[in-house]
């Protein structure tokens, strides 16, 4: 319980990262290439407009998260070193492909 309380206390801190939006529609990511600054923490807000669930999956970002049909989820990534980080929608990986391009300012 104590830990849950601590987590609850920490929640407001989560609001600081820059917010970037990814949309899933017809099992594709939009935009398929997302430019973000390197060296800072990023909040990815992913909106799944399809009826079926999707799993955002990226080995290079070391992230994995299921997003239910017709719903949204957030994932925190970074700070990233400059470079390209591909990701897929694991449940429809033939079409759901994208890449995050982290660039130095």
């Amino acid at each position, binding site marked *: 319980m104590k830990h849950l309380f601590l*987590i609850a206390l*920490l*929640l407001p*801190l*989560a609001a600081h*990262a820059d917010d970037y939006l990814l949309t899933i529609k017809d099992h594709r990511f939009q935009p398929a290439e997302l430019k973000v600054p390197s060296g800072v*923490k990023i*909040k990815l*807000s992913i909106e799944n407009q399809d*009826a*079926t*669930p*999707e*799993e955002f999956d990226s*080995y*290079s970002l*070391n*992230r994995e*998260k*299921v*997003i*239910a*049909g*017709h*719903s*949204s*989820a*957030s*994932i*925190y990534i*970074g*700070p990233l070193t400059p470079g390209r980080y591909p990701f897929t929608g*694991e*449940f*429809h*990986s*033939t079409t759901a492909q994208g890449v995050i391009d982290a660039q130095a300012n």
Partner: protein
Amino acid sequence: MFGTAIIIFREVLEASIIIGILAAATRNVPNSRRWIFAGLLAGLVGAGAVAASTDVIGSLASGIGQEIFNAIVLGVAVVMLAWHNIWMSSHGAELARNAKTVGRKISDGTSECSVLLVIVGLAVLREGSETVLFLYGIAASNDGGQSSMMLGGMIGLLAGVAVGYTLYSGLVHMPMRLFFAATGILVLLLAAGMASQAAHFLIQADLLPSLAAPLWDTSAILPESGLPGMLLHSLIGYDSRPTGMQIVFYLTALIAIFIGMKWVARPRASIKK
């Protein structure tokens, strides 16, 4: 079909490895099989329930409910695995000596069995819910090719179960002394790996700082997308790009459980003398 097989294999693998190790480790504990089986069933039911409420869980705590849920499930599993390993290090030798008579004497044998149920149930629940969602997605889409994907899923499932079974039979055929050391170490590493995964989820939810991210990158040598990396990930919590915080969690769990095991084993050794 091949892609489907890999996805299902990955999901099944971890639960299968956990069940394989625990089934071997507790083979002399009376009724342990029945409790593991009950855990498996409870986990499957739970996986269905979690899958059905993915949208609710996901939207909790402003979009990071899934990470908190996973971290809590993993945290409970770590505590249970720790309990199991410490229990085994104080009762394991007794159990091996006379498996039949000792069962009745061990008063906390029932609590060990309920711990088994919880560990297996949680492992199946966590890995199974994603499988359920994935299969639901296939069933709900009308792209055709469902039967080949379902076939792929079956292949993945069987391959995952085969790994767990191989591990199990390898362990039970070991000489007794090696067997206790091996299962003890495997459970210890499983628990540490889960602690690291829990930290990973809390970092993904931005509830914990990552410290160094990543601390090292071995993805070029041993990627987690390959079979060896996948196996090591499930077995010992291998991560090709771990954060510093994950290592802190990993080592803390490892050392704490190890000390617990040594601590309960010590007084028994002195009684024997």
